[in-house]
């Protein structure tokens, strides 16, 4: 058996639907107060707007100044600057005295944030977020006794 509405009930229901639709419509037209900005859709390469001085380079040139450590005897070894420790991945490899101040200018990927600098068993990880970086061979020591 199916339930049927009487004319009065039908009228009331119609009124509710109309009010509900109106409320929905009003709400749908209202912009949320704090809308999250969405990333711009790609417009195509030809539509890109870039700074007039943008060089489109994916590499950067950095200068690494290595402060030598005065040694009792001349100590010569291989200074390397690499992306990772180990492996055949040196941006630079050269023979130097440990006491020598060395300045090396390198081209590395712009996305590279750090480099491994090694001199024999001495190894340091340096940040290369700036154009000029200084590194030395001094070991990290425990703080002095108070």
């Amino acid at each position, binding site marked *: 058996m199916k339930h049927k509405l009487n004319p009065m009930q039908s009228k009331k229901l119609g009124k509710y639907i109309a009010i509900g639709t109106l409320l929905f419509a009003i709400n749908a037209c209202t912009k949320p107060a704090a809308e999250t900005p969405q990333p711009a859709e790609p417009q*195509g390469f030809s539509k890109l707007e870039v700074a007039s001085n943008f060089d489109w380079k994916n590499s950067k040139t950095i200068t690494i100044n290595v402060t030598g450590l005065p040694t009792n*005897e001349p100590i010569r*070894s291989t200074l390397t600057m690499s*992306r990772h420790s180990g*492996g055949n991945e040196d941006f630079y490899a050269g023979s130097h005295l440990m006491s020598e101040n060395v300045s090396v200018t390198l081209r590395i990927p712009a996305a590279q944030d750090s480099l491994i600098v090694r001199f024999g068993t001495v190894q340091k990880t340096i940040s290369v977020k700036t154009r000029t970086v200084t590194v030395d061979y001094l070991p990290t020591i425990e703080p002095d006794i108070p």
Partner: protein
Amino acid sequence: MLKKILVGFFVAFTGFAQAQSQSQNLTLNFESGNRAIETGNCWAFGAMSYYTSSSSIPSITGAWSGRSNSPTNLDPGACWIKTPWIIPQSGNITFNIRFESANATYTTRRIIVSYIPVNPANFNTNEGALVRFDSITYTSTTTASFTTPRALSFQVPSAIVNSSNPQPYKIQISLVGTGGTVRYNIDDLVVPGTYQADPSNGCRPLVSRPDADGDGVADTEDDFPNDATLAYKSFYPASTFGTYLFEDNWPMQGDYDFNDLVLGYRYEYRLNSQNKIVSMQVQLVPRALGAAFNNGFGIQFDNINQSDVVSVTGARTQPVFWLSTRANGTENGVQEANIIVSDNMSRIMPPPTPGRFVNTESGVPYVNPDTIVLVINFRPGSSVDYEYVVPNPYLLINGDRAREIHLVDNKPTSKMNIQLLGTGEDASSVTNRTYFRSVNKLPWALDIPAFVPHTFERTDITTAYLRLADWARSNGTSNQDWYEDIPAYRNVNNIYRR
């Protein structure tokens, strides 16, 4: 006085005052003021620090002295100073020492002098067991705290002095004790012996390492151990191939699929033991030719004079009317070292089907890339420095020597018709030294320091590399890794696959 003169000398000329070996003596005067400097030179310290002179604790001599912790036991490992490896000589180990305070109490204070032989089985330090050979003990019942420095002297034991078969040893001065808080101050340590440690090799004993070619670079570090003219390889990019991507419709705007020429590259610089570049090997792998033109490819080294080049091998050129090379392989008429790698890349990588592009369209047979190996030898003694060998790669448009496409702001070669610069949609300016930028500031070539796949034919590169636009709009400050294979960085549907 002598100490002050020496200190002044080293500060003036090296910025460091350091422990130094003079004739047959190794000394530690603390005047560097930085324990890390001596530690870097293989001295070692246990519960010891450096201090600078003050009214409350004056130094013994000079501006700096050493200071122990308050020892709490008589073990030689309580507070100590250890020399680097030395070849001991006969004589006396001497130093000045005092108690830091006359008022502080103590029960026992003892100074122990020991030596340490080599034990190769101890891989980390090569140190053998500690051997005590002398000591002096102070007790509070017999000796009041003394704050006036005393010069102590201990004879080097004859057991470790062997002139016929010298062996390395370390000397350890231990400052130990029980009861009370009296610390030691120490200065002017002199040990008879010659320095024999290697700070570049974990401070192990200094040894002569095999060097088969005698170029001064040990075989273990020499990429060419049997060739005295070569020692090292350096790379760009370091661990991978890079990628050059070209549009060839210059000076007009292209479709920006950046696949008209796709070329993998890796530069290997070969240096001698004086860190000068002797030669280069350039590997070039043409991977796609999405072009109707028969384009060539060249590299100019802007900072290298052609006369510094002895030879170039590996270029893939055929006789064409516009190409003339010198005997050394560089292009005639260009003062810089300029190398035409290929007059026509289509000959190296022919289309699989006439009229179709190479490796940019689906449904077209894949063409296996060939590798061009270019070897450039520099004139001996030309003193070519690594940092000056920066490549300036360019595309030669359709057999027209006068038309080149370079990376943004890389200058054209002297063979380029500069009258063409600034025509069409190109905004190059010789006056401003801005080259190969469009009026909309866009490039015709990209250099990516990684192996990156290219797009399908006529597929805008920004629809494949989703962070490229953000990188460009940020002036290169954000999304610098836009080309990497990272989730949400690429739309693989727009990237060419076989």
